[in-house]
């Protein structure tokens, strides 16, 4: 049982950032802007929030600090995503190009800034992890479920799940969501009934910036004690989760947990006696999440539901 608990706890560390970032990508693409800059935005959000933690961790610690850092990550991500929004929406430029550019700029700028700002001149930004929750009061006492979800955890997990619920509600149950979706399907039609396509697309990209920035911090906190200008390709994986999840929140949720679960098994197989006894090398386990995703996609992608106008700059004259 302990192994199962451990895997579920690990799964959260892998799945929640993927979920957050993929949801961010969803908002952007549903509004009609392809955002392959997710990786860069994650790096940017993680860098500024962890730099913040690094600077104030001597005065404060614990959950308060983490929440402040999360706000910083959100703001940093939004500001950075404005660059993408401006190029994609105002200048009708190729969205792949500006996304690629931001992916190149973010890690380089993070290293450059870290080495310029920090007194020791190194590119790693250290932080002390004071955020782990040993056991959530009351909830941690529940048998089985308490062990799985409310011990050895981070507040980010619950915030992530809450954001998923809010995203679902926002996209399907509000006027804003309907308008956002219409801009990603047929912007000219949306415009003809008085929806400001530019505004909605800005909203989509900014939401993706906020969630991707947050996702960067959420990814780094449990797995490391320093930030080295990389989120190990999680932005690209989130892009894969987004497509795997067919641009809908519920499916993204399952896709993120499917992939995260696979990753958790791959990373903790040595603690599972059965898998350990098979004697399969670790590299094979590490490949499994990716192979499994490909296999699932090969059998489930026959009809893909990408937003129709995603990636197409809005041209008012085109009716």
């Amino acid at each position, binding site marked *: 049982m302990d192994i199962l608990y451990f895997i579920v706890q690990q799964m959260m560390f892998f799945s929640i950032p993927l979920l957050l970032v993929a949801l961010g990508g969803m908002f952007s693409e549903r509004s009609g802007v392809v955002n*392959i800059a997710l990786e860069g935005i994650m790096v940017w959000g993680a860098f500024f929030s962890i730099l913040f933690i690094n600077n104030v961790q001597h005065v404060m610690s614990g959950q308060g600090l983490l929440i402040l850092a999360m706000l910083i990550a959100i703001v940093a991500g939004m500001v950075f995503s404005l*660059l993408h929004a401006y*190029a994609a929406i105002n*200048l*009708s*430029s*190729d969205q*792949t*190009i*500006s996304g*690629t*550019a*931001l*992916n*190149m*700029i973010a*890690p*380089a*700028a993070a*290293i*450059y800034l870290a*080495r*310029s700002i920090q007194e020791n001149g190194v590119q790693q930004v250290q932080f002390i992890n004071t955020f782990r929750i040993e056991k959530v009061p009351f909830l941690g006492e529940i048998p089985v479920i308490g062990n799985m979800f409310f011990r050895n955890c981070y507040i980010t997990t619950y915030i992530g799940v809450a954001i998923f619920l809010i995203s679902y509600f926002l996209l399907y149950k509000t006027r804003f969501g309907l308008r956002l979706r219409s801009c990603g399907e047929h912007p000219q039609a949306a415009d003809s009934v008085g929806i400001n396509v530019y505004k909605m697309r800005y909203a989509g990209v900014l939401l993706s910036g906020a969630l991707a920035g947050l996702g960067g911090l959420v990814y780094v906190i449990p797995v490391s004690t320093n930030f080295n200008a990389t989120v*190990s*390709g999680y932005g*690209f*994986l989130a*892009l*894969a989760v987004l*497509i*795997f999840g067919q641009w809908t929140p519920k499916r993204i949720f399952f896709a993120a947990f499917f992939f995260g679960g696979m990753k958790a098994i791959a990373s903790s197989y040595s603690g599972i006696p059965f898998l350990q006894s098979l004697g399969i*090398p670790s*590299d*094979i386990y*590490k*490949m499994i999440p*990716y*192979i499994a*995703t*490909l296999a699932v*996609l*090969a*059998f489930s*992608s*026959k*009809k*893909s539901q*990408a937003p129709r106008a995603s990636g197409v700059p809005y041209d008012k004259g085109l009716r």
Partner: protein
Amino acid sequence: MNKIKKWLLSISPSLIAILSGVFAGFIIMLISNPANAFSGLIVILKGGWNSGMKGVGQVLYFATPIILTGLSVGFAFKTGMFNIGASGQLVVGALASIYVGINWTFLPGHLHWIVAMLMGTLAGMVWGMLVGLLKAYRNVNEVISAIMLNYIGMYGVNYLIKSSNSMYDILRNQTANVAASAAIPKAGLDNIFYNLIGKFKDVSSVNAGIIIAVVVAIIIHILLNRTTFGYELKACGHNRYASQYAGVNENRAIILSMAIAGALSGMAGALMFLAPPSGMHIHVQEVLAPQGFNGIAVALLGLSHPIGIIFAALFIAHITVGGGYLQSLRYMREIIDIIIGLIIYFSAFSLLMRNIVLRATRKRKQYAGEEEAGV
């Protein structure tokens, strides 16, 4: 005359982007360390020339793989596909060529490195073709399958290296040296690109790989612009429904274009890792090959045009080598990546810039026309 004008017009967005990117980099240096900013700019612009002919050779050496990954990404762009999987294709190709380079020593003379290179190309081709097959027959989005195959390739290569007796250098945790006959010949380039230190020739790492890369670029150019096959591929990229209607087999186009894109990346891996004298080594680590992602930048800057890609790769290699000399002025070499990123970002505005240029020229023409008509 008109042709030159048209050509200038087509490359003007890239040139403007380069100028603005370098200028922005200068501003960043000005902010972080004002005293050295100007000499820093000079160092970047001088690129390889900072250390004479050897430096120029190094530029060509660094340009070799990114010309090919750039071609790979650009070729897929032409068929309307985004090949984000150049990294995986490159490392798979590299492993295949290293395997041949170490084990197939029965091959005589020049045949050895040629076969090693071709096997690398073939391996990359298989890896790229998988993406095409999944897209054509199972409708799997090429971006997601390419990302997955990047990681599968990376872990798979690590696994194969570690489980191989002949290829694994346990002490250094990397691949072993390839046989001397498997290293790409220098083809006389070492007699051009060297620095004399006393009587000692300090030779650059450049080899025949750069010549092969340029020739391949020209072949791709001909394939795309002078053959029916290339025309079909481009037609698919422009409008798949129209080309389907005109009788183009879309599935075949997708599979073949990804296979060729993969082959190009695989060849990039081969040329990179078969460099003389004993080949480069694949380190067993969990990092995707950056040359694959640089290929995207090269293709974008070269406007997906094979000849443009050669120059874009040379330029990026030029300032990257220049960046290596920045340490002495107390700048981080990452400034180069920032500049490249900014150049790509500014080139995203190319549509806007070109339209401004077009509008300006059209206006002038309009006036001229009016004058002629006597208005």
